[in-house]
């Protein structure tokens, strides 16, 4: 009896404590940083399990028809690439500010089944900015997107670029339309970024700020492709893990890992290694120095 009393009191105390935290507003809801690790883990696990359960029993149609995937590419370019990016193509800047960060679909397509991808596209996911497409895309169109996503892991950045120019005649016109909408202004992005990130001091006059760099690594979506210790996100293995970056000897497989090279690589990967899957993200010099400062702390 006494034990029961203690248990009930503990439960009441836990609920009260929860409400106090909730109503006091101490929990940070800003999108500049990810949830606390335990919250993130709970949300991520819940999401994964929920999708798994709901996608059970969905029987995918045959997806290996290249024409189906080509139609999927058209929808992908119209509706997906803006937030998720594509091989060698960054997401739009607004999408990089989303929390959670919309993941790289090359990674997703490897990890999730066709039925699960279909379910997520059709129904969307609450509180993640992933919309439900049920009322915007027909059944065939939804599966065509899944068919294309399943080809993504085998698509090199070069092949993705080529696929924008080629493709069956049926979709060529539509794809050219989509191309016309492409904002291909990465050089100006970088210039804008430099203008944006000047705080009145050149990057060399000010101390780089590793904590600010940690946030920038989140805000430029780096963590969407790389595992970065200390930056909470879904573990992603599109590119190499940045664990122990402080003592890594080479960057991009070719540049000695100095501050200057790291900054250059972060800012201009396509100039250093044309065709790399790492996109130019319009990172300004100050932001790049701060990111490098954070990475230099990873031992």
């Amino acid at each position, binding site marked *: 009896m006494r034990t029961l009393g203690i248990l009930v009191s503990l439960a009441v105390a836990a609920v009260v404590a929860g409400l106090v935290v909730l109503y006091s507003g101490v929990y940070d809801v800003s999108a500049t940083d990810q949830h606390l690790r335990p919250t993130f883990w709970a949300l991520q696990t819940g999401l994964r399990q929920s999708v798994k359960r709901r996608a059970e029993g969905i029987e995918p149609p045959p997806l290996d028809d290249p024409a189906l995937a080509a139609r999927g590419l058209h929808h992908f370019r119209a509706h997906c690439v803006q937030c998720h990016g594509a091989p060698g193509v960054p997401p739009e800047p607004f999408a990089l500010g989303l929390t959670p960060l919309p993941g790289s679909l090359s990674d997703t397509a490897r990890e999730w089944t066709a039925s699960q991808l279909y379910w997520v596209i059709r129904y969307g996911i609450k509180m993640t900015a992933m919309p439900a497409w049920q009322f915007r895309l027909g059944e065939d169109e939804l599966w065509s997107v899944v068919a294309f996503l399943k080809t993504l892991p085998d698509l090199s950045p070069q092949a993705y670029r080529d696929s924008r120019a080629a493709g069956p005649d049926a979709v060529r016109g539509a794809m050219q339309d989509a191309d016309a909408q492409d904002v291909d202004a990465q050089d100006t992005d970088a210039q804008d970024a430099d203008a944006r990130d000047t705080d009145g001091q050149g990057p060399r006059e000010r101390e780089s700020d590793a904590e600010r760099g940690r946030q920038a690594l989140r805000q430029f979506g780096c963590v969407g492709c790389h595992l970065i210790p200390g930056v909470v996100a879904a573990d992603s293995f599109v590119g190499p893990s940045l664990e*122990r970056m402080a003592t890594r000897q080479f960057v991009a497989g070719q540049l000695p890992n100095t501050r200057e090279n790291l900054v250059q690589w972060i800012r201009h990967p396509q100039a250093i290694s044309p065709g790399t899957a790492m996109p130019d993200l319009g990172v300004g010099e100050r932001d790049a120095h701060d990111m490098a400062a954070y990475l230099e702390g990873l031992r």
Partner: protein
Amino acid sequence: MRLNDCFRRAVRGAACALLPLAVSACSDPSMQHLGAEAANGRLLLRQFGCGECHTIPGVADARGNVGPPLTHVARRTYLAGRVPNRPETMAQWIRDPQRFDPMTQMPDLQVTEAHARDMVAYLFTLD
């Protein structure tokens, strides 16, 4: 991921304790789940000195940090930042890295096709 690993390790531990038949296989905990190709690949990765530059779980002395760690290499989308990661492409990359990226620091170690295939079999257990 880490939780998953713990869970897997726990399951493996339980299996070792419970299944008398598995006891012999459990004597070397890092080898028990490997097929012959992968087990050979693990030795080859050691013999070709891959660990001088890469950290490779399960491979003796493979703590290098010249190039990226291969800790989760089976899950990687791209190799060398551009090659879609499949067993065939990984074997080609190991055998002739300069073909994919002329600037890469990864040396051509004259790995034979059969050796590369075994290395890949091991590396694809790292997820």
